[in-house]
């Protein structure tokens, strides 16, 4: 692949949107638009000729690299395979904290559960059980999560107020505040003195 095609491939790969020939020309102002056009064609032919899983597609006046439609069903199968029917213990615990403490941010969930994972939140979100419901005003404005209607539907309850022991658990599920037992401390003090 020639250097211009290489650059165009990297650009089409990393861009979040289709790129026009003019935009692609910005990559190397020393070449002509015709040369850019030829390099795009060369990239397309290379993908086709070597049987790549992706192809160059012209759409909306620009170019984009997309996966071949023929592979869509296999990609979908993989996505389905990655979902199992039961939630793991970690997922259930995270879901429980979100259900009773919503809206709640990731750091607070981790503080309460004592273990964590971005993966767990992502999976719960992908499975449609939780969703982003806003942002906290706190440092870094973290995302806040809440449960979805699907969650209520699966549990067979009408609304969040019908969660068993809603108030009690909302209070019990708080980030721990380490406290020092006053008595043991005073005892240590006296001992040291005696």
């Amino acid at each position, binding site marked *: 692949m020639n250097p211009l095609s290489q650059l165009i491939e*990297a650009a089409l*790969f*990393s*861009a*979040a*949107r289709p790129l026009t020939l003019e935009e692609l020309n910005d990559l190397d102002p020393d070449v002509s638009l015709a040369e850019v056009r030829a390099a795009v064609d060369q990239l397309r032919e290379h993908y086709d000729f070597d049987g790549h899983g992706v192809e160059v597609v012209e759409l909306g006046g620009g170019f*984009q690299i*997309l*996966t071949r439609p023929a592979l*869509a069903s296999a990609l*979908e199968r993989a*996505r*389905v395979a990655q*979902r199992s*029917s*039961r*939630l793991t*213990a970690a997922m*259930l*615990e995270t*879901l*429980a*904290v979100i*259900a*009773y403490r919503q809206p709640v941010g990731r750091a607070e969930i981790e503080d*309460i*559960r*004592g273990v964590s994972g971005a993966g767990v939140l992502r999976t719960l979100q*992908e*499975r*449609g*059980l939780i969703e982003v419901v806003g942002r906290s005003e706190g440092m870094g404005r973290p995302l806040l999560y809440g449960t979805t209607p699907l*969650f209520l539907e*699966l*549990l*067979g*309850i009408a609304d969040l107020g019908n969660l*068993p022991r809603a108030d009690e*658990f909302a*209070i*019990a*599920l*708080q980030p*721990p*505040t*380490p*406290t020092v037992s*006053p*008595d043991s*401390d*005073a*005892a240590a*003090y*006296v001992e040291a*003195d*005696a």
Partner: protein
Amino acid sequence: MTAPEAPSLGLGSGNAFVVELEQFTGPLDLLLHLLREEQIEISDIPIARIADQFLRVIHELGLNQAADYLEMASRLVRLKAQMLLPRPGDEEGWEDPRAELVRRLLEYQHIKEIALWMDRMADRRSLRMPRGYLPPPPELPPPPLTLDLLEVLGAVERVIAGILHPVMHSVVARPLNVEAATGRIQALLAERDEISWAEALGPAPSITDVLSTLLALLEMARRGQLVVRQPAPFTPLVIRREPALAAD
């Protein structure tokens, strides 16, 4: 790290720049900087000189309000005093009071090196761009998800079991009772000229009892009703009635 090199501090300039405040990530960072500027080995710090410089710099940079810097400043001042104490005769038994600071500085310097390496790695990594366009996930048939209320409640219980103090208890402020402590001390001193710290505390004292007793003692000492003394360093306090009973 991100900043290429901390600039020379210009100790005499007398200007407190907020910009410079961000040059240091903490008191250890500042201390390392001072040592580097003076080309001093960490293992042999001239404490008196460095302590003075540290105090001057945090004052000039307006860091003398920051707790972490103040704590380091007081540590350095204490070390400076300890270095001036006469050393016991045998060199063998002498423990360098700087040892702990030296250990911390070496450890911190090591962390800084690792951080620098990570910065370079992340910088190199950021030259590689990931895929920018993410196709929206196709509409998949609803997954065969099973979930029931019992599972969720079981999870709640597991989480609560892992929390240290799961039930929210109302925190009742226990006020210090200096009056009661004063009364107890006065009663003891009515019988004897001298009592011990443990006696003044009373049986099974709580932390608030300890504080109440301490405040009562200080107040009574201020009024000249008693004298608190420590016969030798690290020995228990002795509380003595003033004036003594005999002279009463």
